[in-house]
């Protein structure tokens, strides 16, 4: 009997440890860490972010450097193409129609996609959360205006809106600012803030009926403080999941616009931050599909990888932050 008790003694501290309650955030993080697919997704996203940041260091060549007589070189592992072009090991993925290094261009293309993914998202989250929260909490006329506005914006097919905006404003000073990136951010933000506003509004509408909000109001907490300290933390999970699913949509939109020739304007100087985009590379690669398929393949693989990575991360985040939603959709 005593031996048994002694045997249990070393376990007691662990037992006590387990009794310590974890915060919901810690639990969510642990659930996320257990999800292998989303960790892989996270690793891929971080990888491409690093590539985007250190593009100038990583790229083996200047992405704008034109080498005469080196056009459409095959990738390094192809010894010689049917056309009799020998590869050059210095150009891992070969060269394009002007003899520019494909790999370097793809590396610089990551910059546009990453920035397009994150910057407009940040803008729409800030705008959408503020408007959604205000409309949901205050209700009445503001809520009505928001809902009618979202109805109209939802009815406008968003890709068509981006195309129209880019076509018509591209040659104005607005379209030339930041090589056209500013216009792209602005139009992405205009369309996308409604989604998050509607989502936050819905959350706030249901939260506002809960007892803890009523209690806060009863003890005289002011409206702004209720919003920032009670409503915001409770809607954050939904917002984070929404962001993870929204970012790939932005990246795809940029790629489509680039493919249509409506994306980033090619910069004049080689020291520009944005040199080319994956969508733009697809457009260039399209005409050389037989001569040099890697101009098309490399950005296509990158787009597919990034988009899948965000989807897996989003799935994991949804499962981790909202266990009730598990398995739905």
């Amino acid at each position, binding site marked *: 009997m005593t031996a048994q008790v002694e045997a249990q003694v070393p376990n007691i501290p662990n037992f006590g440890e387990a009794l310590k309650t974890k915060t919901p955030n810690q639990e969510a993080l642990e659930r996320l860490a257990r999800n292998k697919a989303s960790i892989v997704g996270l690793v891929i996203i971080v990888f491409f972010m690093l590539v985007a940041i250190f593009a100038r260091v990583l790229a083996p060549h200047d992405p704008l450097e034109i080498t005469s007589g080196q056009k459409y070189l095959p990738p390094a592992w192809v010894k010689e193409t049917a056309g009799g072009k020998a590869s050059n090991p210095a150009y891992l993925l070969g060269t394009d129609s002007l003899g520019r290094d494909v790999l370097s261009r793809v590396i610089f293309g990551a910059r546009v996609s990453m920035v397009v993914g994150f910057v407009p998202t940040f803008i729409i989250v800030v705008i959408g959360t503020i408007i959604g929260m205000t409309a949901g909490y205050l209700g009445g006329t503001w809520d009505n205006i928001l809902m009618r506005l979202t109805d109209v914006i939802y009815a406008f097919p968003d890709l068509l809106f981006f195309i129209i905006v880019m076509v018509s404003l591209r*040659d104005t000073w607005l379209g030339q600012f930041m090589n056209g990136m500013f216009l792209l951010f602005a139009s992405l933000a205009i369309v996308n803030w409604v989604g998050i506003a509607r989502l936050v509004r819905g959350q706030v509408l249901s939260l506002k009926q809960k007892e803890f909000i009523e209690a806060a109001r009863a003890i005289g907490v002011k409206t702004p403080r209720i919003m920032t300290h009670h409503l915001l933390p409770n809607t954050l999970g939904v917002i984070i999941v929404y962001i993870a699913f929204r970012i790939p949509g932005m990246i795809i939109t940029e790629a489509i616009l680039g493919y249509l020739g409506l994306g980033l304007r090619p910069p004049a100087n080689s020291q520009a931050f944005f040199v080319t985009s994956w969508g733009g590379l697809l457009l260039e690669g399209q005409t050389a599909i037989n001569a040099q398929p890697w101009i098309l393949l490399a950005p296509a693989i990158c787009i597919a990888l990034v988009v*899948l990575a965000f989807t897996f991360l989003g799935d994991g985040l949804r499962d981790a932050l909202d266990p009730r939603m598990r398995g739905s959709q």
Partner: protein
Amino acid sequence: MTTYLIRRLLWLIPVILVVGAVTFILMHNTPGGPWDTDAERRQVDESTRKSLEAFYGLDKPLWRQFLAYMIGDWNNKGEFVCGLPCGNFGPSYRQRGVPVEAILFRPPEDENGNLKPWYYSRFGYSLRLGILALVIAMGVGIPIGTIAALKQNTWIDYLSLLIATAGISVPSFVIAIFLIIIFASGLQWISVIPRSWDSPSVWILPAIVLGFGTLAFTARLMRTSMLEVLRMDYVRTARAKGLAERTVVTVHMIKNALIPVITILGPSLAGLVTGSFIIETMFAFPGMGRAYVQAISQRDYSMIMGTTLIYAILVALANLSVDFIYVLVDPRIRLEE
């Protein structure tokens, strides 16, 4: 029900007006366009410009031009010229003497100078490709979703989920690039740009690529819906009264599980017909989407505006169709507000 239907249809009018207004305003502020009033960029002399503008009605105030486009206006002879409601989208600015609606909806002439059937028009081509893509997506997606649900948590289920996730998240033009490079430049089974679209075999690859996203979505939706139906009491009852497993699956489960899938038919078709401009461009398909992309690169503003409005109307109608199909297939739902 009727009131609801009328109300939803009336709601289309402001939507189309807003889409039209946004497009109209943006197009009018475009530098270098036919409506550009910047004198330095003008290459025609003053009198030519004046008579051209009078011919196209561009000398009128902007609001009147907009109304003329969206509803109609009286011309110089005092006759009423109907606008958008009569299918009048105005003249194309690049293809002289051809109105926008003729580019999109008029079929080409055959060798004898007769018009071919309507489905040879650009819209007809896009519609046919969209329907084929939808048939492929449903024909493959529904069985995949059904099997995955019946064999839940087996490798078949996981494989189909993986394909569905990839198909939903990876955009169709990226999938198109992979398939074109594998089948056209690698294996050389098909030519990327066929000389003629008359033989059915050249339609298959673009249709698969176009429908892949819908296929994946259908499979996922069907799986979720089947899993829900599996646990229903009436399925247990059907089994309990000794029906053959095949009857239970086909009559009691699939029939009910199909309800959510059927409702996405409308938006899917609209998405396939309107979302195809990249796929059409890649395959040099003679449809509406490629005409749209060409209009963008040629800056054919009236063509861009007209096609955008047609796309917007199609999408709005398709979204509307969801509600009505729901009522038709599921008698439990009543549309009242």
